[in-house]
């Protein structure tokens, strides 16, 4: 993603999650998604941003976060970049809802949702940043 359509920079504060949601909804609608899928994609982006704030930056309220949204011919591409703690996506647990409930566990739902909503969810490192890349095929 060299020059994405829209780029938003903001600090790692949960009060700005609504902003992520709003931006992604708007661009998803422009990309041709209907209202409901657009809102789902926005939720996936919000989950990714939440993880950046809560895990990569755990506790820090001024960590720089960048949201990039692009419309390519066949896909909506959303990237979240941060300079926080390095993520090992393989360490990320899978969810078993029934067990989850029984054992009163918390967490894991966000990634699960992202996986259900998006066609692609990929974590990588790029120039010292964590990159979470979400893709959704366009109609």
């Amino acid at each position, binding site marked *: 993603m060299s020059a994405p359509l829209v780029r938003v920079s903001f600090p790692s504060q949960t009060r700005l*999650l*609504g902003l992520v949601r709003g931006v992604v909804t708007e661009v998803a609608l422009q990309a041709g998604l209907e209202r409901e899928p657009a809102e789902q994609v926005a939720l996936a982006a*919000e989950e990714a941003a939440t993880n950046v*704030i809560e895990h990569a930056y755990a506790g820090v309220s001024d960590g720089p976060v960048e949201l990039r949204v692009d419309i390519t011919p066949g896909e909506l591409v959303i990237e979240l970049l941060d300079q926080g703690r390095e993520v090992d996506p393989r360490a990320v647990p899978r969810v078993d809802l029934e067990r989850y409930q*029984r054992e009163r566990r918390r967490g894991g*739902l966000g990634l699960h949702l992202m996986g*259900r909503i998006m066609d692609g969810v990929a974590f990588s490192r790029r120039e010292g940043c964590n990159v979470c890349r979400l893709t959704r095929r366009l109609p």
Partner: protein
Amino acid sequence: MSELTVETRDLEQVTLVYPRGFINAHTVRLFEGELRRLVEQRRLRIVLNCADLAYIASAGLGAILGSIEEIREQGGDLRLSELNPTVRGIFEMLGFDRLYRIYASEWEAVSSFAATEGGAGTA
């Protein structure tokens, strides 16, 4: 601006909970606190009326999951009503519609407790 308010109201043996706004990582503590308070007060027949819930992120779903077992162990249940299409879609995506009883109207959700005498267990 209030991003989330949570009102509760008792109707016969049932406690109605009205989240208004959205439940995400930013607002979940308020919601979680309300659920915890109800459990402490042993108001365990709970209907979550989602008519004014614009959306719920995983943090909110986690708060529901995190309290349900305790509610059910003590003979209560948490049931839902009036989910908007986006919220309903998220519930279904996670299989929450298999774990929780979801009703179209508040009235049906409230009545369901009378029908099952206490109402423990999933649908």
